[in-house]
């Protein structure tokens, strides 16, 4: 059914990260975007102009729509950055620098 079962994956132990303060389990090897998708989260940015929600679009680092704040660093492309144990992931609003 799910891709992990289909590929008979034996992932390493899951780690815990937080997304907007909420703890999530994340599998090693996944990007931040894949970890958020797996947890049912599809939006993690508000646009600079109208504050509209955005998440992954191109999935390969070209479109910059999936920008997110990870461990207080804004503008990280969630589709490229690997998730690490203890990551503090936050929805990025605007340029992500307003709340520095």
């Amino acid at each position, binding site marked *: 059914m799910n891709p992990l079962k289909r590929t008979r994956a034996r992932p390493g132990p899951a780690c815990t990260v937080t997304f907007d303060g909420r703890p999530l389990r994340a599998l090693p090897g996944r990007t931040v975007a894949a970890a958020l998708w797996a947890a049912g989260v599809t939006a993690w940015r508000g646009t600079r102009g109208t504050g509209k929600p955005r998440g*992954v679009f191109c*999935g390969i680092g070209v479109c910059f729509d999936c920008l997110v704040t990870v461990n207080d660093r804004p503008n990280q492309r969630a589709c490229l950055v690997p998730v690490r144990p203890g990551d503090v992931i936050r929805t990025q609003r605007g340029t992500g620098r307003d709340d520095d």
Partner: protein
Amino acid sequence: MTERPRLAVVGAGPAGLAAALAAASRGVRVILVDAADQAGGQFYRQPAAALGARRPPAPHHRRRTWERLRAGLGRHRAAGRLVHLTDHHVWCVARESGSGGFTVHALRGPGQEEGVTVRADAVVLATGGYERVLPFPGWTLPGVVTAGGAQAMLKGGLVLPGRVAVVAGTGPLLLPVATGLAAAGARVAALVESAGPAAALRRAPALTVRPGTLAEGAGYAARLLRHRVRTLTRHTVVAAHGTGRLEAVTVAALDRAGRPRPGTARRLACDTLAVGHGLLPHTDLAEALGCALSGTAVRVDGEQRTDVPGVWAAGEATGVGGAALALAEGHIAGHSAAARLYGAVPDPRRRAGADRARSRARAFAAALEAVYAPPAGWADGLPDDTVVCRCEEVTAGRVREAAGTLGAGDARTVKLLTRAGMGWCQGRMCGPAVAGLTGCPLTAGRRPFARPVPLGVLAGLPDAE
């Protein structure tokens, strides 16, 4: 030359791997530079090692070719003929003044903050392509992803964006994406393809030059039937709906002019839309080196040489044509670069097989491009309030105004008047839409750097002489 010549190959997809192996086996020291943590590019993208997958996530195409490439890579690395730099994001390749060599500038690691330079006597650019997506109302909603993006997340992260997907747009990529999503457990509510069977029939003779690829397509079609995926040809997505995230799409049949036919619209509930309208070549590195383009692709000769001495290009960067073409072009580029680096003229007889494969694949790609051209009238009915430039949130109405009322005659002027293309992605996403809406030709981006570079890395570069 006392030392073995050094060839930098940028990109470890089918073209880059073929080039690297061909050159390494001819005595050249190869530095293969790639952004991913494993070789394969988008086509042969592998699940992350830490996920411990024991089977591929989707029906695997051309598995034996991949295994041969991977084995070759391992052999040359073990023998010290090839260095594979993973997680290296190349932002510029520069010609050195005087030496005739090149410096490849990359950012290392996931943070992409540490500058690395690699020096080489020649370069093969195998930078691949990226997806073209034409806009429609709602295409910025979370849950709408590119077809290739959905596939990348599935292949690399073994994750699905949702439960019910629609796959839409045009092009051969839609078939493996729909099949892959269905096999991974998503319900694929429909595959919506704007091309019709008539377009394929008109080009049937040209398409039969690669019967193996046609059979592959038939295999996907059979799997779609098995997964009960409904295919709507001559249809398009008119709008995506939802608040905060995707909830449904409206699809409609197309008339002969490629416009949605009134009265044919229907709504399909879904939480994922994977959409794409073909690919475009990545040409930033070639452009910064001063290589001439042909349309939107890097121009190459029969040896895959660009018009800049010492620079070769292969794969989607020279024109989108798929993995088989990329493999042939990469092989020819690596073979030619190795010969030229040793001051020899490459023997065309030694690459005759690759030459034939390249010719066939190019003819096939040209026929496919004609079959899967986006519907001609796609921009006509696009509402003025549709966001076109996703980064700067510029609407179709403002782009039309720039070309109409304000008289902009090229994409650069539209950009200056509206900011379309001025954001993070530097017009990669909205370029085709701006061209379609304004009638301006789709031109190369002329971006000095292929990706954002921290100021600290730029400041740390040594001064030029």
